[in-house]
């Protein structure tokens, strides 16, 4: 906690041969196997990114990644992308009636079939996006209900 600062500190991020993300902090100390974590993944994903060690203890906190050198920022974005997995549902091909329901969807990451336990697993965010959590805890976004095709929208509405 004491090590974490909110100003942008001097540090370096890179990947080693073991595929681990390495943080070299201001004191030149190496931290292997770190992961970047967004503090507000839904409400403010672009700011307040923490770099944590393997037991999720914060090492540094980056309030605004825009202020980082381009190379570090690139690595950071790459590392974030590796751990970020919220496919966006583009079409609901089919959903069974009742609960739990089996959903067959097309996402920006390819087709997928999953089980939705109940309507509680669809949460509306304050910006109008929907977040759907399947029975395995995998989450999906529905960015804009209005932009879905008619069939998908009608199917979705059964669960809202």
């Amino acid at each position, binding site marked *: 906690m004491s090590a974490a600062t909110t100003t942008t500190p001097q540090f370096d991020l890179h990947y080693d041969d073991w595929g681990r993300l390495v943080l070299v902090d201001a004191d030149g100390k190496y931290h292997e196997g770190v*992961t970047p974590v967004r503090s507000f993944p839904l409400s403010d994903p672009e700011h307040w990114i923490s770099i944590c060690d393997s037991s999720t203890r914060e090492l540094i906190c980056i309030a605004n990644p825009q202020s980082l050198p381009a190379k570090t920022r690139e690595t950071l974005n790459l590392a974030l992308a590796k*751990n970020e997995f919220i496919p966006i549902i583009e079409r609901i091909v089919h959903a*069974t009636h*009742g609960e739990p329901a089996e959903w067959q969807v097309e996402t920006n990451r390819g*087709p997928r079939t999953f089980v939705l336990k109940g309507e509680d697993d669809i949460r509306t965010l304050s910006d109008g996006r929907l977040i759907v959590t399947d029975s395995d*805890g*995998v989450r999906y976004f529905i960015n804009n209900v209005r932009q879905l095709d008619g069939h998908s929208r009608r199917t979705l509405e059964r669960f*809202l």
Partner: protein
Amino acid sequence: MSNAEANLAALPARDQAPIASQLESGEIVLSFVECDLDENLHFTRTLVVLTDRHIFSHSDNTPVRSWKLTDCASLKLSLHGALAQLELFGTNSRLTHWRLTAHVVASARKLVRKWDAHRQGIEETSQESVCPSCGAPMPMDRVKCEACTPKPVTKKYGALFRLLPFAKPRMGLVIAGLCLAFMSTGVSMIATYQSKPLTNSIANPLSEGKDVDPSLIRYHLGLLAGAAILAWILGWARSFCLSRVSERIAADLRNRTYGHLHKLSLEFFGGKRTGDLMSRLSSDTDRICDFLTLNLVDFITDVMMMAMTAGILLTINPKLALASLVPFPIIAWLVHKVRQRLRRGFRLMARAWSEMTSVLADTIPGIRVVKAFAQESREVARYRKSNETILEANDRVNIVWAVFGPTLTLLTELGLAIVWACGIALLIRKEALSAGDLILFTGAIGRAYTKLESLSYMAGAIQRSSASAQRIFEILDRVPSVSEPVRPVEPGVLKGDIQLKNVCFQYGNRRVLHHIDLKIAPGEMVGLVGQSGAGKSTLVNLICRFYDVVEGSISVDGHDIRSFPISAYRKNIGVVLQEPFLFYGTIADNIAYGKPEATREEIVTASRAAGAHDFILRLPEGYDSVVGERGQLLSGGERQRISIARALLIDPAILILDEATSSVDTETEREIQAALETLIQGRTTIAIAHRLSTLNRANRVIVLEAGRIVEQGPIDELLAKNGHYSRLHAAQFEATAPVSSDEDADEDDDESSDE
């Protein structure tokens, strides 16, 4: 060899040929996982196979890749939320990695375990385990038992039809009600039919100045009055029968739902809001009841009446009857149009109600926090907002209704005009139609049309109640995640010999317990210590079977606890939780909660043992004092002692104290401690405590850290060892001294509030 072939056959069909072609002779498939993501996190299937010589990886349209096990150093599975990574390392770099979602993590774990076992040269001979619930064998890549895990069923019928089975036990009454409905409608038709003879043979002759036999007048008028009275009596009997059935169906539904709710595990309640459940059980069942008693009964009689009217009209004059049907297709079309919209509207409305109940259910128990932080106005605003949501939902429905109602009136008026027009046209053309016929016709049609209107309200009522029924069946369809065994073993009175084997547990995708192995002998007292969040409560929750283990097994007296009927098993366990919960009722009722038939003597003995007797006597009404919903009248320590008495009264073989004495002062704790000493005799006791002094009597202390057992043994040994326990110990007994490390500070935090 046959085993190897069997394992190869377990692979998905599309991978069998490519993998088989790679296998050397005698090479055995140990395990596999179907990874469901590619490098760029797109959904793609990649099969990873572990054999006793290689690791293969195969995805469609690409050749099989392979690594010799001799070139590999380690295989690691790491999780990040619902996303996982399986990494294969060589001696000086990472060889490859696969990405997968939580969907297949369980099989990936199995693969890693097989890898570890193989590396350590352990031949896992008994890879076919059996399901503790039904005894069916479970193949190597399965985590859940295929045989007895219920599958999601697709429901073909609407939610309302699913109410039919509830009517079955009262079929007699239903049939009686329907017969009465038929008769009462039939009798009321007599009245309608009388308008023809009254016009043709009485009113018309009289107006033309002819004489009419007074007995004829008396006869027809008498018939009219008699039919009305008979219809009244039959109608009353009909409503009585059908309402009686409906009320009972609704009550059954409520009981069934509430009963089912109690079968569901803590996992279900963790994800639900109290208010939502309350509203489902109260307002939604009530809506269904209203529907059945009011709308459905009306609907049935209306349909009968319209059918009979149609029959009479057709016999009198088919042409005119056809003309009167003109509005029907339009109305049918209209009903069809608004149905979907109404249903959605009513569903939103039911949800909005839930939301509002939830605000209440959240705020009232938390009223002290609300007041302490002076957030009353915000809570009022929150309530107002949810109330507005109800208004909005209502408005949505009303817009549709507002158009629907008047349109219907318009159509029926037009329909009547059409009938008059056609009738007059027929009279002009001198077709076989008398004035009496026309009067009868328009009268009957007028009545039928008004019924039609009420019938169309049915469209709304159906949608409304089917939205409610759906919300109730959502609970009823939920399969308990802690399920009753298919082939139960009666536990009877257990000895309390607890054994945990390789127990892993996770909430969602977060693992909180890793590979716990633990044996507790009957009558032993075990202390469980560790930082807050280490998983202590989770461990005892598993022993109580509030949740089921994800991997491994827990057995008591040699039987997997999943093979015991749940409540018979729990009767053997007494639990005292950190946050004592008292129900609304007297203190005596609360103490005897687990054994309602307990004698006064038993109650007093238990409460003496728990050190509660004295303060209870100080209350003006003693054991008969009524404690409020959450026992607000009592202090934390007093409530705690009542809940200890409650646990002691059932004389359990296994006693679980989850920070049971954390909220009482040290003095009281010492008293309870003395009481506990006699009580733990002969019971297996698991005590979680922050205050280490509580555990002085423990035969053994287990230190849990981040979901793993890091140390265990008798207190003296642990103290001598200078390890985790002695660090915790030092931190506590030097609480006044400056704190040196982070870890100690955490412990200290938890303590400071107690002392």
